Structures are given as structure tokens and as C-alpha cells.
């Protein structure tokens, strides 16, 4: 059984201009010890989906419907005090722009210990020991426990955030754009670290990013989201070898590969849509070169299993 199963999740933001359908009927699952990549561009809903799992949505967001089954328990139903037992203990998150999420007036070691002390009944010195262990685990010298965030480099801060996320030995870690703000070499180091941790600690991971290459390197399964909906969902190899959804194809063709000589990049025309008033029918149809009218503009394509364990939401998936 999967560690986390999200079914038909709908999360809306109730703004003054109307409800923004940030996540509209999305389903995915994460197995124990496996990594799921949640990919898409800005505004597609991937971060919102992750925050919905942890029920950390900012106002005015609300999980409207769907279930979030973690280790057999539906998290969408339980009250807040119960939810707190799950947060950080069973699943945690490394936020986007994590380097700036550290409190500048506290030592980083203390910030890690804080997480431990809040959830477990241990003494301060025990918490400190554990924090130092975690720092070493992520490749930061444990003497850095007493350093302030501004004294560390970007890469080290990112690692500290990872250590913080691991503080209570969670089963699932959500990493939201963990490598975006980092240099290429540091990025490689951090991703390598995450892969190693995943194997060592049997962690399940949801990696949220817009960079498909990172997903190719680290994830077993991929879910591509577009404008709040699931576009394609399958294992990593199939996604890159045989992409079914036009958007996925467009994305792959838009990535400059450093190995390619005389590459030809094709771009996806148009701009990502407005989520208050999304296009009718298939949300991607205004930008899709395969769109056929009137079906693509009138009917929303359901997520269908096209080949084994390979899902796509396109009326013509498999034919094009």
C-alpha cells in the first residue's frame, strides 16, 4: 500500500475576485521509500497541492474536497490538534527559498532543536546532540550548530533546512524547489545528498520543481501539473521516453540540453492561464498544437490510464 494517497484533491483560494481553483481534482500516490516528482510551471498548483497534504494552506485557501490518506488515515478529516501530530513527526517540508526561511536572529542549531523539542519529550542537551548528528548527516560540520544563518553560504543553509526537516525522523519529506536558488555545483551536491538520505533512511519524497532534469535524476514517478490539473502521471523513464500529453512534450522540447549539439528548442506559445477564469474544456487547449475543436475547447479531458500505470489527461493521448 502506498504511504501517501491523494485522491481527487480540490483546493481553492477564496479571493475577493472569486475562487481561484488552484488544485482541481488531482490524484497521486507515493510509495514507501520512493520519490515522486511534482512538476509544472509557476501557478500550476504543485506547491498548493503539497501544502494541502500538510494542511498548511495560507488564508484564503481551503481544501474543498478529496481525501489525503497517509498511512491509512485520511488527513483531510481530522481536527487540527491531531494534524499537529503528523506534521513534522510523520511528514515534513523543506520550503521554497528555504535559505531565507531561517530566522536570522537564532543560531541554526537552535532552530533545528526547536523542532525536536516541540514534538518529542527529550531534554535540551539530547536535542542538541541529535541536531548535531543531523547536521553531520547533511554534510555540515557540527561546529556550525552555533552559527547564525548569515554566516553560512547558500548551500549550507539549504542543507540546514533539510536537517531541520529530518529532525523528527519523518516518513515523508516534501521538498519544494530545493535546488532552484543554488548554483549548479551546489545543486548537484544537494541533490546527491537527498538521494543518499532517501536510500539511507528509507524516506519517501515528494520533490516539487519546474526543472524536469532534476526530476529525471532523482525521482521514480512523475506527475506533471498544468493550471491546477493533472496532465500526465507515470514513472520517470516513461515520461522522458514516451511523453503522451502535449504539454509534457512541449516542456521537454523547450529544455536546452547541455549535451545537445545544434539543438532546436521549440517553445510553447502563449502564457500560463488565469486560474480565476481558466479556459473552458481542456485548460491547455489555447496553447496546444494538437488541439481539435470543438472537443478540446468544450470537454475537460479526464485522467485516463493510457498504458500500464501511465496516465494522461488528453482526449488524444496515445494517438498523437
Amino acid at each position, binding site marked *: 500500500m502506498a504511504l501517501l494517497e491523494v485522491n481527487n484533491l480540490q483546493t481553492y483560494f477564496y479571493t475577493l475576485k472569486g475562487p481561484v481553483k488552484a488544485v482541481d481534482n488531482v490524484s497521486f500516490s507515493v510509495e514507501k521509500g520512493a520519490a515522486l516528482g511534482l512538476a509544472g510551471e509557476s501557478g500550476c498548483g504543485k506547491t498548493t497541492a503539497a501544502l494541502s497534504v500538510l494542511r498548511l494552506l495560507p488564508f484564503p485557501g481551503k481544501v474543498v474536497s478529496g481525501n489525503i490518506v497517509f498511512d491509512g488515515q485520511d488527513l483531510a478529516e481530522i481536527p487540527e490538534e491531531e494534524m499537529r501530530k503528523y506534521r513534522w513527526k510523520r511528514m515534513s517540508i523543506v520550503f521554497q527559498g528555504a535559505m531565507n526561511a531561517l530566522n536570522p536572529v537564532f543560531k541554526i542549531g537552535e532552530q533545528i532543536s526547536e523542532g525536536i523539542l516541540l514534538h518529542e519529550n527529550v531534554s535540551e542537551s539530547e536535542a542538541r546532540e541529535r541536531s548535531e548528528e543531523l547536521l553531520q548527516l547533511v554534510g555540515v560540520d557540527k561546529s556550525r550548530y552555533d552559527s547564525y544563518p548569515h554566516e553560512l553560504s547558500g*548551500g549550507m543553509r539549504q542543507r540546514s533546512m533539510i536537517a531541520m526537516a529530518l529532525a523528527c525522523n519523518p516518513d515523508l519529506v516534501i521538498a519544494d524547489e530545493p535546488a532552484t536558488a543554488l548554483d*549548479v555545483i551546489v545543486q548537484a551536491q544537494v541533490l546527491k545528498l537527498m538521494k543518499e538520505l532517501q536510500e539511507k533512511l528509507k524516506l519517501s519524497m515528494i520533490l516539487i520543481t519546474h526543472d524536469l532534469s532534476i526530476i529525471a535524476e532523482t525521482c521514480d514517478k512523475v506527475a506533471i501539473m498544468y493550471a491546477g490539473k493533472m496532465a500526465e502521471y507515470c514513472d520517470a523513464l516513461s515520461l522522458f521516453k514516451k511523453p503522451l500529453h502535449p504539454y509534457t512534450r512541449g516542456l*521537454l522540447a523547450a529544455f*536546452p540540453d547541455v549535451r545537445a549539439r545544434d539543438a532546436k528548442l*521549440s517553445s510553447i*506559445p502563449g502564457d500560463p492561464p488565469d486560474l480565476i477564469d481558466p479556459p473552458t474544456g481542456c485548460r491547455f487547449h489555447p496553447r496546444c498544437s494538437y488541439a481539435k475543436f470543438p472537443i478540446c475547447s468544450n470537454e475537460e479531458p479526464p485522467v485516463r490510464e493510457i498504458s500500464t500505470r501511465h496516465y494522461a489527461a488528453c482526449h488524444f493521448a496515445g494517438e498523437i
Partner: protein
Amino acid sequence: MSGDSLIKVKNLKKYFPVSKGFLSSVFSKKQLNVHAVDDISFEIGKSETLGLAGESGSGKTTTGRLVIRLIDPTSGSVFVQGKDVMALKGTELKSMRRNFQIIFQDPYESLNPGMTIFDTIEEPLAIHGVGSSPSERQAMVKEALELAQLVPAEQFLYRYPHELSGGQRQRVCIARALVLRPEFLVADEPVSSLDVSIRAQILNLLKELQARLGVGYLYISHDLGSVRYVSQKVAVMYLGKIVEFAESNEFFENSLHPYTKALVAAVPVPDPSTRKVRVALAGEIPSPINPPPGCRFHPRCPQVMNICKEKEPALKDLGKGHLVACFLYHSETK
């Protein structure tokens, strides 16, 4: 290096003084400097793109601003049409600016939120007194918008930056940069803030404009994939120095400097089947205030030799325009 060169950069240096606390400035006389750009030279030909790669702290962004003299260098020259840009003053300097423009990383920040698109693009024309009548200027603005593929141009003239998407804003910046038909453009991370599906649009636009207008680019980015895509020649900087320079394919397929190799190997590729062992380098870029002695890369170099710790290697031409600054390739040390 062949072809008529558009710009020739020679021995460019930029040091930023570090302000110390009151006490340390009283007790210690030594002035600390950030060696942002430390003696670099290169040439860019007409209608050619030089990709400048490197990580943060390498000095590439500072180089971009130095070349068009947005900031003044500590020493060195940039020759354009025979004249040293760094020696120009006043009106001569101002008219030089007509020929050189820049596109910045954040398209929203680069636009004045209170000015319409029309005003923004018209401004360079107004500053340099180009266009003899308002209708002529309007026609030039429209042309610039069309070059940047913002059509129909009329629709965009009187909008404000916040009404446009990220990709559209960057196109406005491109239109603004091109309205004076410069020969040279510095593009400083022009697509890093944009969505993936939009990046390709902008990169393709840049290439097209180069083919159409014959503009030369200095393309600065940490994303090696895009650097390879748009550049004919590539240089990589490390701690203020150029450590390797070559023609694009040669650079990526036959990287010589250990840093270059590590950098190219570290770029993730969209192919799960090639989960190669990436030569992940240990450590991080040291502080540019106190660069390591000798070869700046030696503390992290997997192939470090004794000489590397004492002497700095010069950029050596190994043939076919491929330059490397590494003792591994100096015949004396072999």
C-alpha cells in the same frame, strides 16, 4: 579569434572596497577588496554571441555591467570601434550608449511601474534625440515591439508593466534595448526568472534577432544548457578570472579545465536512463575578498599539483581558439 571584432576587452579589473567596522578600520591599515573581476580579456565579433558562464561570485554579472560601463572599472579597457570606452566622457560617452544596451534578469524590476510601455520604450529615443516628430517616434516604438513579437503592437502601447505576463515584460525590455538598433547587447540572465515554457520563446527570439539585425550578445548565465543553445563561443569564470574559453561545441564536448569539467558534469540532464556519476565537487566557492594564492581553484581541484598552490596559471591558447588557464596544459609542467 577572427572576424571584425565588435568589442575587445583588455585586462579588465574591478575591485570593490569592503567597508569594515569602525574599530578594525582604526587598527588595521590594510584595505580589503572584493576581487570581483580580476584581469580578464576577450573579444566578441560582430553578430556573434559570447556565453559567459559561472556560478554566483564568479564575477560574470559585474563583467556584464563593466563592459557597457554601467559601473566604472578599477583598471582595463574596452575597445569599441577603436576607442576605449573607459576613457570616454560626457556626450561622447552618452552617444556610445546608443550602440550598447542591456537586458536584465528580472523583467518586472527593469520596468518603471508608473510608466506605460510606450513611455518606457520611447525613452531611449527621447534621451538621444532620435526621431524628428512624435509620430515618427511612435512608429519606431511600434517597430521595436514588433521585433520583440509583441503583436498587435497597439494593444501594448498604453498598458502598464503589471498588466503583462513575465514573458511579455521581458519582450518589452528587449524592445526597449533594440529601439536604437544597437550593435551589441548584454543579456544578464534574461530567462532565469521566467517560466520554463516561456524561456524557449525568449531564447529563440534572441537568436532570431541576431540573425535579422546582426546584433552581438554577451550572454551571461549560470544555466549551461541555455548558454550552449545561444552561444557560438563560451567562456567560464571562476572567482573573477576566465579559466577556459572555447568555441561552443568544443567547450562542452572537450572541456579541459577541471572546473569546467565539474561544472558541465554537474548539469542535470532530462534523461533518467543516464544516471551517471556526477563529478560533484566538494566545497563551495571561496570568498572573493581573499582569493586563494596561486591558482584560485586549487583548494577544490581534484587534479591539484604543487605548482598550482604557488603560481597563477595564465590563459594559454592550445589551438583552434581554445584557451585554458591550467598548469595541466602548460608544457613546462608536463
